[in-house]
């Protein structure tokens, strides 16, 4: 049974279950994964790969989406 681990998400430290997938993480924070883009340790992860992308301790994740702008 894996314990919890620390990762960075959008610059904030988060405690998540060990072996969590990127998909699971994203679902925690957005209702619309289709509108969100994910970056893991500087590399863009396409949505079809989220489920099989397993996070490690210290992973740096960025979840970005569109907002208003000029």
């Amino acid at each position, binding site marked *: 049974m894996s314990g919890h681990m620390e990762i960075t998400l959008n610059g904030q430290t988060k405690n998540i279950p060990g072996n969590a997938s990127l998909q699971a993480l994203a679902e925690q924070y957005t209702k619309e994964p289709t509108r969100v883009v994910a970056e893991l340790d500087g590399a863009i992860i396409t949505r079809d790969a989220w489920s099989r992308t397993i996070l490690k301790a210290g992973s740096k994740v960025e979840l970005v989406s*569109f907002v208003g702008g000029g």
Partner: protein
Amino acid sequence: MPPIAHQTAQDSFELGGKIFSSRFLLGTGKFRNKGELKASILSSNARIVTVALRRIDLERHDENILEYIPDGVTLLTNTSGARTADEAIRIARLARASGQGDWIKVEVINDSKYLLPDNEETIKATKALTAEGFIVLPYISPDLYVARRLVEAGATAIMPLGSFIGSNMGLRTREFIQVLINEIRVPMIVDAGIGAPSHACEAMEIGAAAVLVNTAVAIADNPPMMAKAFAQAVEAGRAAYLSGLPAKRPQGEASSPLTGFLFE
């Protein structure tokens, strides 16, 4: 200087291989609520809107802005937040990964006082992004040499600023924009500082291909009505340009006749 060209029967706005029915571009920032944004897009018939990319808010599950942008409107993602070419490139790649398109407004600003763009970093980012197949519209302080380099770098259009972002000061850079319109073969889309429909009209009168407005619409008392006014001003200015505005003549100096000798 007026163009040595003849009027075309039909004025179509072509950009990046697509034809757009409006030369009015709308920015989506600073709106009080997203309903006003949607209404403004509809009332003005803007066919291209700019959006930005930000980290999602982890505490609140905001509604996504894309819900409020009608289908068929082209998204022009700006690289706002980027302070260097590398950051702009990164944002562009993220935008592309969203599947919403390849249109990027390169905006590289490392100046929080005036929000002036870094022309040099913009050139670097443009070169890299066009090589990766993006449709790039760089935002710059109007400079002829920079514009030429951007054309060489493959920019689809150029977005010279009219005045400082958010200032609503109008076309302070008018003469310099005129130089770019005269000398550069890609469309000029005047951006930043357009504070009133008359400014937008003026930009079109001098030959700009299109105009981008954000603040003046978003903070108006009635954004959808203001957006429509801007769209109408853009049309009027374009028609004036195509009709051939009379040039202003300098006054002659009082002196003895220059051509009297021909009639003696």
